[in-house]
C-alpha cells in the first residue's frame, strides 16, 4: 500500500467516504426500498445506518490496534501471512468488481437518459478518463477531489424540493402499517447504499487525526442517511408507494418537477452533472483495488496497477456489452457479495482479532 506519510485531513476523510457512498444508489433507492418495505422504508434506512455505523466501529477498532499499519499489514497481523494475503486478494477482486458494476450501470443510465445512440464502449472509455486521472493521483489530491464534489454538488439535493408542490404527506401514513416484517425485509436494500465507508480501512493509516477516525465514519454515514431519508420521503410523498414500485429511477423522475424558463428536461443536465459524484465512487474503489494489487505484487506505487485495472475494465467492456436487464441481475447478485464484504467481514475480522487476543491472554 502507499506510504502512510500522505496526510488526509478530517474533513477530507469524511467527504471521501460520504461521496463514495453516494453513487448510483440514490437514483434507484426509493424504488428498491419501497418494493421491500413499503412506505416505512425510512425506518429500514435508520436500521441500516445503525448497522453500517456498527460495522464501521468494528473496522476502526481493529485498525486502531495496529497503528502505522496499512490495511495489508493489519490483515497479515490478524490473520497470518497467507490468509491475510488471500483476504486482501478477495478485497481487490471485490473492489475491482464494484468499479465494474457501478461503471456499467452508470453507462446504462447515461445511454437511457442522456445519450441514446452512443456506443457503449466509447462511453466507458470516456468515463474512465477522469477516473484514471484521479485514481493515479496522491491520496491527498483525491481528498481534495472529494471536497470539490462536496462543495459543487451542494445545489443538487435541494432541487428535489421542487416536487413538494405536488406532494401528499398522507402517503407516509400509516407508519409501519404492515408490521415489522417489511421493515426488516428492507434492511438488506438499505445496507447497500451505505457501502463506501469500508474505504476507511484504506484511509485510516493516512489520517492526520486518528482519534477521530470513528467520528468520521459516523459523520459520513449520517450525512448519507440524511440524503437517503430525504430522497425517500420526498419520492414517497410525491409518487405514493404503489407508483414508486413501477419507476426504476424515481429520483430522476422527481426532477421532472423542476421547471425553469431557460432549460427544460432538467434531469438531463442533472444526470450529466451527477457523473462527477459517480467518478468519486469509481476512483475510490479503483484506488482501493490498485493499492491492494500494489501490496500484493510489491510494486513501487499504485500508478501501474491503476493502468492495469483500467485496461482490464476496457477489455471487459469490449467483450461484454450488458443491457439494463443483465446489469440489474448482476448487481442484484453482487449486492449480496458487497454486504458480505462490507458488513460481515469487519465483524468476523473483529471476532478473529478478539479471539486472538483472548487466546494470548489465556496463555499468559
Amino acid at each position, binding site marked *: 500500500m502507499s506510504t502512510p506519510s500522505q496526510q488526509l485531513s478530517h474533513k477530507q476523510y469524511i467527504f471521501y467516504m460520504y461521496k463514495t457512498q453516494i453513487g448510483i444508489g440514490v437514483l434507484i433507492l426509493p424504488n428498491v426500498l419501497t418494493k421491500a418495505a413499503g412506505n416505512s422504508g425510512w425506518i429500514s434506512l435508520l436500521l441500516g445506518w445503525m448497522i453500517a455505523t456498527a460495522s464501521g466501529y468494528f473496522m476502526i477498532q481493529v485498525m486502531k490496534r495496529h497503528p502505522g499499519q496499512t490495511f495489508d499489514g493489519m490483515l497479515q497481523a490478524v490473520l497470518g501471512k497467507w490468509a491475510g494475503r488471500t483476504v486482501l486478494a478477495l478485497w481487490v477482486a471485490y473492489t475491482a468488481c464494484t468499479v465494474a458494476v457501478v461503471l456499467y450501470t452508470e453507462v446504462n443510465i447515461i445511454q437511457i437518459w442522456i445519450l441514446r445512440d452512443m456506443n457503449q464502449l466509447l462511453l466507458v472509455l470516456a468515463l474512465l478518463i*477522469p477516473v484514471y486521472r484521479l485514481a493515479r493521483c496522491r491520496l491527498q*489530491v483525491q481528498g*481534495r477531489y472529494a*471536497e*470539490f464534489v462536496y462543495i459543487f454538488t451542494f445545489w443538487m439535493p435541494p432541487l428535489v424540493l421542487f416536487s413538494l408542490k405536488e406532494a401528499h404527506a398522507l402517503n407516509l401514513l400509516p407508519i409501519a402499517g404492515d408490521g415489522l416484517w417489511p421493515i426488516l425485509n428492507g434492511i438488506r436494500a438499505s445496507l447497500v447504499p451505505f457501502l463506501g465507508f469500508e474505504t476507511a480501512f484504506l484511509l485510516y493509516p493516512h489520517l492526520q487525526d486518528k482519534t477521530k477516525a470513528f467520528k468520521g465514519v459516523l459523520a459520513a454515514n449520517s450525512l448519507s442517511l440524511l440524503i437517503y431519508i430525504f430522497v425517500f420521503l420526498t419520492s414517497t410523498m410525491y409518487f405514493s408507494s404503489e407508483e414508486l414500485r413501477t419507476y426504476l429511477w424515481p429520483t430522476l423522475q422527481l426532477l421532472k418537477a423542476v421547471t425553469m424558463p*431557460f*432549460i427544460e428536461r432538467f434531469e438531463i*443536465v442533472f444526470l*450529466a*452533472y451527477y457523473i462527477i459524484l459517480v467518478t468519486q465512487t469509481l476512483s475510490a474503489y479503483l484506488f482501493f483495488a490498485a493499492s491492494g494489487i500494489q501490496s500484493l505484487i510489491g510494486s513501487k506505487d499504485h500508478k501501474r496497477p491503476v493502468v492495469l485495472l483500467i485496461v482490464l475494465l476496457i477489455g471487459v467492456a469490449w467483450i461484454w456489452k450488458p443491457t439494463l436487464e443483465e446489469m440489474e441481475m448482476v448487481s442484484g447478485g453482487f449486492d449480496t457479495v458487497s454486504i458480505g464484504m462490507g458488513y460481515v467481514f469487519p465483524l468476523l475480522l473483529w471476532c478473529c482479532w478478539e479471539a486472538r487476543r483472548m487466546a494470548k491472554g489465556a496463555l499468559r
Partner: protein
Amino acid sequence: MLDQEERLRPGMPEIKPVLQRHFKEVSDFVMKSIRLGFNGQAVLISYLSVVVDEDKLSRDIIQPLILKAETIEQVESILEPVRLGSYERWEDINKGMWKGHVFLYLDGEAHAYLLNMSSWPSAQVKEPDNESTLKGTRSGFIDSNHTNLALIRHHIPEERLIQQEVRTGHEGKIHAVMLYHPDKADPANVTELNARLRRIDSQALMSMGELAESLEDNNYSMLPQLLLTERPDVVASGIMEGKIAILMGHTSQVMLAPMTFLSFFLSADDRNLRWPVVTFFRLLRFIGLVIAIFLPSFYIAAVSYHYEIIPIDLVLSVGKSLERVPVPPILEALFMELILEMLREASLRLPPKVGQSVGIVGGIVIGQAAVEAGLVSNVMVIVVALTAIASFVQPNQDMAAAVRLLRFPFMIAAFLMGLVGIVIGIMVLVTHIISMQSLKAPYGSPLFPIDTKKWRSVLARLPQGGFRNRADSAVAGNDPQADSSSRSKR
C-alpha cells in the same frame, strides 16, 4: 582575447595601448588625457560613452580636477564620492567599464580607479498600460531594479523586508532579487524558490516570462502558476500576504509566487473600492469564467445532442436560424471563435488607429454579413460575442488567455459526447487544478483543500472591521496620539 591574469603596469605609455587593444572594436570607446591644474600630472580617463553620464563626468570630475584641485588631497576628495575602488587586474577593469564605470588613471600610480558614472537608459515611471485600474496607484514598474525596489518599499513601511540577491544562470550572469517578509512568507517556499532559482543554467534571460517558465511547477499546464505584474501595489500587498517577489533588473515585470488558482481573479482595484461593489465584481468574474469556458460548448451540446433541454419557444427560433447553416455546429463555432481570436490578436498588434478599423471590419462585415449569407447562425454569433465579453472581464491577462484557450477542448468534448463530454472535461480540469502545487502550496487552495477562514477574503470581500474597531485597538495599544486623533475625527 583578454588574458585573465593580466595586470596593470604603471606608466601612461604602458596603459594606453592596452586599453586601445581591449576596446579596439567598440565604437563608443572614449579616451581622454588631461593634466591636473596645479602640478601638471597626467590623468587618463576612459569610458564607454553610451552608458556613462558624460555631463556629470565633465561637471563633477574633469572640470574640478583641472580648475579647482590645488593639492593631492583635494584630488582625492573630488574622486571620493563616486570612487568604487582601486583595481589592478585588467579583467576587473574591463568588466567594470562594460557596466558603465569610468576608468581613471593618475600617472605614476600602481593602480587605477573605477568611478561610478553609469547611466542606463530607462523609461519613466508611468501607469502600466495593460493592468489599468480605476483607483489604484498611478505608478508602474520600469526596467530598473533601483526604481522598482523603491516603488515597492514606498508601499511597505516595514524595515524587516528581506532583500536577497541571487546570482544564477550560466557563470552567474543572471541577477535576481528575492523580496519577502520574514514573518509572513513560508520558509519552505523561500528555500524552494531559492533552490529553483539557483538551478537555472541559461546564458541570459530576456524577460520575466522566461524566468517564470523555468520556475513554475508544471510546464505542460495551460494555466498560469506565477503572477507577472507591473503594479507595485499588487506586489506590495502580495508580499504582505506572505508571497515572494522576484525582480530582475532589466524587465518591467515583477513576479509573485506562490500563486493559487483563485488569486488570479483578484484585481488591484479590489482594495480601493467599497466592499459590496468588490464582492459583486468578483462574482461577475466567476460568472464570466463559467460563461467563457462553457457557453459555446453547452450550446454545441444542446443543439447537437440534447434538443429536449431547450425550451420549446426557443427551440423554434434556434431551429430557424440553424436551418440555413450548412455546417455542423462545431465547425461553425470553431470558425467563429478562431475569427474572434484573430480579431483580438490583430487589434493588439496593430497601431491603435488602424486597430479601430479592424473592429469595424470584424464586427460589422464578418458578424452581420456572415449571418445574412447563411454561413453562421444568429445564435452562434451571440454565443461567441457573449463568450468574448465574458473572457475580457478577467483581471489577469495570463489567466484570461488560458480561459480562452480552454474553451476549445471543451467545445470538442461537447461535440463528441454532449453534456457528458463537458462534465468529463470539468472533472479532468478540476483534477488538474487540485493536483498542482505552486512551490510548496496547493494551487487549488483555499477551495480544495477547504480552508473556510480564507474564503472570506478570496471569494467575496466583506467589510474589514472598519474605523471604529481600529480606533479601539489603537487605544489598547496605548498610543494616546492615535486615540485622540481618531476621536477628533469622530
